[in-house]
């Protein structure tokens, strides 16, 4: 019964993992074929300013994107409020970007954020701000991607957090209300600690997802943009090296370093969770 799956996963996943590891120690010729070159790729990678920039961009993007987690917590708490009508409707609005193709999201936001005739800069002009060309400007491009990334994943996080909120006993709120706690106090003293396992889960997923960011850079920024330097992520660089330049040995080494980064960041979060996550 497990034969089809064992076969499929071995051929397409397990064996390729070892192959990629092997490739990372090889050099690829321009006309196919590869030869063993030991640690050359890794040595080259350490001194490659483009690789360093891609990793720094990716880490910076990942850290900035974490702002989406507290925002999602606040909105999940608001949506969970008993007095609010039409919760399902609002939840659907927040969730809409999750089911929208990232390529479509990128196309629309590139237009909204256009420097010359984008609606955002038009709105900003009312408050006297002369907006930059966001995605085209290397100072603002990465921040623009963070905003779009948060917008498109917030609904996903809200749904997970909302289901976590259902498990919090209403008695806790009633008891604290009798003790005179207001909504804000309740949010910080009850909601956040009780929800911390879900918050932790959402944070871990958000970090893993952000570290693999590709679609938004590919469609919103693109290869020819001057802002690519400040937004190029590791996976974008990997794609370019592996499938545009056919420098697959080097690309394999790059993506293996990313794997180490993903594992390290995940491990770090599991270490840190002892300090702030409460399992009731």
């Amino acid at each position: 019964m497990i034969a089809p799956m064992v076969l499929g996963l071995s051929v397409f996943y397990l064996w390729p993992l070892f192959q990629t590891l092997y490739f990372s120690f090889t050099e690829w010729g321009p006309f196919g074929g590869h030869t063993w070159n030991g640690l050359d790729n890794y040595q080259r990678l350490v001194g490659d300013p483009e690789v360093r920039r891609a990793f720094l961009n990716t880490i910076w993007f990942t850290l900035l994107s974490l702002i989406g987690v507290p925002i999602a917590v606040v909105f999940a708490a608001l949506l969970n409020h008993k007095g609010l009508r039409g919760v399902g409707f609002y939840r659907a609005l927040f969730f809409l970007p999750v089911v929208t193709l990232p390529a479509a999201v990128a196309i629309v936001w590139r237009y909204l954020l256009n420097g010359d005739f984008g609606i955002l800069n038009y709105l900003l002009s009312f408050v006297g701000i002369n907006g930059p060309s966001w995605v085209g400007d290397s100072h603002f491009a990465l921040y623009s991607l963070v905003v779009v990334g948060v917008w498109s994943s917030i609904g996903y996080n809200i749904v997970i957090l909302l289901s976590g909120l259902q498990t919090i006993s209403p008695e806790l709120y009633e008891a604290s209300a009798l003790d005179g706690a207001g909504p804000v106090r309740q949010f910080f003293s009850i909601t956040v600690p009780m929800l911390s396992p879900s918050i932790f889960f959402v944070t871990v997923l958000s970090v893993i997802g952000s570290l693999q960011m590709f679609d938004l850079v590919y469609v919103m920024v693109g290869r020819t943009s001057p802002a690519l330097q400040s937004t190029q992520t590791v996976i974008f660089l990997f794609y370019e090296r592996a499938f545009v330049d056919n420098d697959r040995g080097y690309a394999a080494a790059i993506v293996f370093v990313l794997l180490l980064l993903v594992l390290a960041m995940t491990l770090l979060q599991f270490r840190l969770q002892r300090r702030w996550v409460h399992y009731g």
Partner: protein
Amino acid sequence: MASSLTPVGSALRPEPVSTNPVAQPPRRAHRFPIVVTVVVSVSGFVMVFPFLWEFLTSLKTLGESTSVPPVIFPGVWRWHNYERVFEAIPFAQQFLNTVLITIGRVAGQLLFCSLAGYAFARLMFRGRNLVFLLFLSILMVPTQLYVIPQYQIMESLGWLNSLKALIVPGLFSAFGVFLLRQFFLALPQELEDAARVDGCNPIQTYWYVMLPLVRPGLIALGVLTTIWSWNDLLWPLIVNTDPNKMPLSAGLASLQGQRLTDFPVLMAGALLASIPMIILFTVMQRHFIASIATTGMKG
């Protein structure tokens, strides 16, 4: 004696009660939702605004789409922009490709993942734990670590620029096995034993008794695979460079490449490509939400 100061009289009037400090929290609880409603409505508008603007722009002329100050409503609703999407890219073919890829992956995963998930949950066989551990390790590794060898497999099979390249690797999923195993584990062992006593072999037990009971798990896996399959961009870009073999995600990226500033057509294309999933989500909203809430995983 009809004085309003009697306890009964004051109890009938709400106003004097408000001086009582105990009555404060309920009153605040009543006022608070208005603030909540306003905040949530405004943010909800921010969430849908890009979609509204996308729709309005898709019906404008190029001049209207780039005018400052912006034109909110198009002078004439130019549905012709949608036809131009079909002229720029083989949209109908790409839509069909996307549907076929999604159906293929979902059907394959439901079958293979449920078979394996059931076996891991209920059958004893040699090396079970070792194989399961290997499967789990796949879950931890970003998908990009597999794509170079996967590309080579597709190349050597002559499957580049075919739907097979997009469907076949997606038939298998360690996540799906793990997910469905959890659902099978939650079913009582007695059901299994009863089926055995009645003479079912493991395949029959799986198919007739257990599979119908893990329906929520199958729906969750189906929904997640659909979202992931519809939205996936990197793998299609790698294996299918022929526009007629691309899914919509890659097709949109190429549309953007050739019509960089033709915003009405770009918006029309982006909207057309997203609408099928938006409709599916609207119709099956409960299942979508439940799938994310119970599994919390992207494919």
